[in-house]
């Protein structure tokens, strides 16, 4: 019996290949998007982890400078006084290439003799040219180049290369190249030099960036207790906390978007399987009548679903693999843009992701097929369901779905308000709201159509009434498709509104933060002092109204590495927007050096509040500074605090600066002033000059690039929804062939019939588009106030504009109309005699 049932199923799909195709495409796209995103995420994560591990090696701890850099004597003390042999001095900086002004590369200065105990640089062995690490020591002014960079620059072993460091051009000799480590990592290695060469190149004689250590627990305790001036011991896993958290949050967001595509895909498979069952309800009724058991029918439908899922999943995995190739570039570029300065190339992702995608695809399909399978089993052997009874059942179902949606909304509200402050809980809430929206859609569609019918129906004429009522009358078919379309469009709306809100907030923040007209930045590795003569020269430029000075240093703390921005504000103030605290009191306390302002990201991530004391290590010991306010900060690097420059200089005894903000008078010509500034700086120091408008433009470019990936996913979600509508409409067209034949017999012209059907699909799009407006707005509110807050610690204004919502409505109508074209065309060409014969 079961063999015959399977044959019957197979023949059904062979007779309706489009149905099979759409089901496979839907679930395949869902699986593909999920797998693609996961592969890209994993590949990027592994690339970063491996590249970090490459530099970190077996380092367990680091001695970091409190301030700019370490005195070399600290290294000597570690080796001699504390008897620690596994210690490696490091100089790290970013340098320019004279022949390629657009290129900046990381430079790592190491002591090859000390490296063996810390990290294996065997992988750094020169690939060609015969050089080795020993020659780096023996031959001053030599470097090893990453192989890709050497090829790009055409720098063969033995050739000279001119590096641009702090405005100076310095010649080095290329000893050889460094290949990538291992087969599955292609993280770009740094330019490698001996530590003495690096110190000389960077003008850091007797100074170090840090000391990498491999310590036992006892050694670490002993060293932490020892007083080492200007240095602090930090376990490596405590470093880069902000980066790790942000990158993880970014990846979680992407995973959620991938899952969303799978959810929409599941809708599609549910719709398709339901249609397939509904279309065969007569056959199923007959089968039940002749003695096929419920179990056999359920089994038959599930086997059918399994076969569809298998084909779809295989295709989905292939699609995901292909998609990942494009996505990984976007993910890497985004993470690189936001969190890393060095370029990293994709690593091989874990093969388990394919298994995960396959399991999800199969699971989602079988889950989606479960209800249609049960419906099939419930088909009464005595009474084959009449269409009208079926639609009545669908309307009853819509009422139950509405109740379920209300319960779901209440639950998700409670969880979001009272549940733990975790990101996954927030995503749970978001998915629950989406599910509630989907459940509400069929009932909302019926209400909307009833409203349109009552208000306009008769005025528009009976063909229009036919179209309007056709939407509600086919609820068993259109309900799922409209819900899928509404969810997809709500996603587009929600993400669109979130991006608008974010971009607006970012723009406002940049306007607030970029108080100066021109900015001069100095390489952080340098020790540029605020040379009074230079400052006077800049102030003397025509049109300059005043200067602000900044010194930014990374300070290791119990809360991870924190960027301390020591600021002396210019005439236009601090350029900070307070999100917590009394502005007047806070800025006074800040100016007088009585406290710090903390970024809201830091406050959120470390659950700090106003008045808490932040402990910062200074060369003269730990200092506790009260937090007097929290400022908005869309920076993606380390958590940061702002401190008065004078207080910083007093505590850290560091008079270097990393940035100068130049305020111009209203009447000044900024282009002339910028050129004059460049002329003033030329030859004096290594500095980059950028205008505030340039920084703003660049920031927004990075922002737009960051959200490019969401566009890809939004398009894919829309395609899946489009397929859902197409599938539903084709099913309706097939089912209503007889009714359409009658309409033709009554005198509807083919064009008139097509117009009626297109009106119906357009209305379906309107219903989905209208439903997507509140749903998308709720989604955006959750993304802005909950997801982004919990992911990144950013608070932003929630900006609701009509434009993205109307665009969503237009997209819904366009997708529905587009999906309706083919079914309408087919319906208009229905063979009258055949359609009427089907009695």
């Amino acid at each position, binding site marked *: 019996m079961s063999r015959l049932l399977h044959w019957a199923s197979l023949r059904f799909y062979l007779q309706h290949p489009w149905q099979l195709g759409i089901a496979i495409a839907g679930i395949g796209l869902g699986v593909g998007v999920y797998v693609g995103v996961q592969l890209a995420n994993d590949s990027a994560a592994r690339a970063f982890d491996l590249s970090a591990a490459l530099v970190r090696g077996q380092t367990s701890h680091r001695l970091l400078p409190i301030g700019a850099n370490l005195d070399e004597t600290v290294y000597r003390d570690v080796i001699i006084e504390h008897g620690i042999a596994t210690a490696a001095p490091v100089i790290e900086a970013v340098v320019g290439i004279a022949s390629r002004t657009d290129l900046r590369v990381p430079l790592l200065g190491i002591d090859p003799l000390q490296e063996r105990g810390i990290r294996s640089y065997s992988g750094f062995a020169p690939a060609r040219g015969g050089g080795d690490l020993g020659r780096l020591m023996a031959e001053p002014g030599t470097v090893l180049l990453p192989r890709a960079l050497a090829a790009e620059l055409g720098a063969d072993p033995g050739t000279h290369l001119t590096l641009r460091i702090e405005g100076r051009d310095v010649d080095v000799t290329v000893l050889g190249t460094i290949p990538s480590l291992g087969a599955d990592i292609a993280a770009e290695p740094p330019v490698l030099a001996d530590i003495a060469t690096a110190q000389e190149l960077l003008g850091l004689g007797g100074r170090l960036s840090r000391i990498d250590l491999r310590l036992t627990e006892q050694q670490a305790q002993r060293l932490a207790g020892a007083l080492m001036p200007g240095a602090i011991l930090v376990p490596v896993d405590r470093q880069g906390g902000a980066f790790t958290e942000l990158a993880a949050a970014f990846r979680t967001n992407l995973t959620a978007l991938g899952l969303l595509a799978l959810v929409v895909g599941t809708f599609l498979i549910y719709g398709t399987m339901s249609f397939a069952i509904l279309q065969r309800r007569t056959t199923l009724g007959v089968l039940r009548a002749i003695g096929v058991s419920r179990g056999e029918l359920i089994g038959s439908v599930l086997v059918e679903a399994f076969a569809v899922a298998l084909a779809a999943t295989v295709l989905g995995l292939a699609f995901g693999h292909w998609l990942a190739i494009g996505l990984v570039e976007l993910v890497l570029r985004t993470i690189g843009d936001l969190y890393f300065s060095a370029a990293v190339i994709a690593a091989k992702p874990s093969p388990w992701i394919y298994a995960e995608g396959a399991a999800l695809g199969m699971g989602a399909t079988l889950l989606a097929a479960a209800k249609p399978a049960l419906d099939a089993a419930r088909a009464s052997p005595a009474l084959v369901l009449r269409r009208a009874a079926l639609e009545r059942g669908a309307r009853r179902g819509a009422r139950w779905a509405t109740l379920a949606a209300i319960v779901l909304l209440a639950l998700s509200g409670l969880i979001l308000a009272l549940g733990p402050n975790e990101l996954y809980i927030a995503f749970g809430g978001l998915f629950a709201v989406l599910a509630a929206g989907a459940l509400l859609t069929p009932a909302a569609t019926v209400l909307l159509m009833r409203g349109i019918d009552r208000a306009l129906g008769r005025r528009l004429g*009976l063909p229009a009434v036919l179209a309007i009522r056709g939407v509600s009358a086919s609820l068993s078919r259109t309900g799922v498709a409209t819900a899928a379309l509404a969810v997809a469009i709500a996603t587009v709306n929600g993400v669109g509104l979130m991006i608008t809100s974010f971009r607006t907030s970012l723009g406002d923040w940049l306007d607030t933060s970029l108080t100066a007209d021109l900015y001069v930045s100095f390489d952080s590795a340098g020790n540029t002092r605020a040379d009074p003569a230079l400052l006077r020269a800049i102030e003397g430029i025509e049109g300059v109204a005043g200067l602000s000075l900044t010194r930014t240093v990374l300070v290791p703390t119990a809360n991870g590495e924190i960027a301390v921005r020591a600021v002396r504000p210019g005439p236009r103030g601090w350029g900070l927007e307070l999100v917590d605290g009394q502005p007047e009191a806070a800025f006074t306390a800040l100016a007088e050096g009585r406290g710090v302002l903390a970024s809201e990201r830091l406050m959120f991530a470390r659950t700090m509040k106003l008045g808490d004391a932040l402990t910062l290590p200074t060369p003269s010991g730990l200092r506790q500074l009260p937090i007097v306010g929290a400022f908005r900060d869309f920076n993606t690097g380390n958590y940061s605090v702002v401190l008065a420059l004078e207080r910083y200089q007093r505590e850290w005894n560091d008079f270097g600066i990393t940035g100068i903000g130049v305020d111009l008078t209203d009447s000044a010509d900024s282009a002339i002033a910028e050129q004059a500034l460049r002329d003033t700086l030329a030859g004096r120091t290594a500095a980059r000059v950028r205008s505030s408008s340039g920084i703003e433009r660049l920031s927004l470019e990075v922002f737009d690039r960051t959200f490019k990936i969401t566009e890809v996913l939004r398009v894919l979600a829309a395609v899946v929804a489009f397929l859902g509508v197409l599938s539903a409409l084709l099913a309706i067209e097939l089912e209503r062939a007889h009714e359409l034949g*009658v*309409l033709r017999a*009554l005198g*509807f*012209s083919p064009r*008139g019939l097509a117009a009626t059907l297109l009106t119906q699909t357009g209305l379906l799009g309107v219903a989905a588009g209208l439903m997507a407006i509140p749903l998308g707005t709720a989604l955006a509110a959750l993304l802005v106030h909950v997801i982004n807050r919990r992911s990144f610690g950013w608070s932003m204004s929630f900006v609701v504009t009509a434009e993205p919502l109307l665009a969503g409505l237009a997209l819904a109508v366009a997708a529905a109309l587009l999906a309706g074209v083919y079914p309408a065309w087919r319906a208009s060409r229905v063979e009258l*005699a055949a359609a*009427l014969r089907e009695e």
Partner: protein
Amino acid sequence: MTNSAWIELRDVAKAYGHQVVLESASLTVRRGEFVAAVGRSGSGKSTLLRLIGGLESADSGFVRVAGTDLNALSEAARALRRRQELGFVFQFFNLIPTLTVGENVELPLALNDVTAQAARRRSRELLGELGLGDSADRFPEELSGGEQQRVAIARAVVHEPKLVLADEPTGNLDAETASQVLELLRHSCRERQATLVVATHSVEVAAQADRMISIRAGRIRDEAP
């Protein structure tokens, strides 16, 4: 056109694949005549109706209605003719489930650009005449089979067509209801001077026709009434 040949089929052939349904079939029907076509299942009765209604074309020969060769008309022109000059009654009623009874009857008027108000008035009058005045705002599924067929008749004649085609109009009804429905159909057509062609298995139905034809082996023959 003469009064003696308002519908004219000459040497009409129609086949579905290898199955020949009509072969060299000829027929003339006068204006206002009530003709019953009888024959076994699959003999071609429904095909004959669909050819006369312009729902499909003959493979050869010609089908003329009111002097117009239907084969020569485009699909749009045939749709226009159906809309204006034809009424259809089906065995399974084929009312549009999403329209109310009143709206189903209004549909042909709406297609003929009669104003909504006039169409509504006309449909209510007609439903009243057919004893369904109270059912205008109900949906078809709320009516019995006999009532649904009466609505179908109202829909077929509301726009005063010159020709009404009925395919087994009583095939799905009990004997008493069938008799009432047939009488109603006959009366409605006669009142409007509409030609009525009915395809039926029923001897009782055929007995009430002005003329009875039978289809056998693809040919049409006149039978004694």
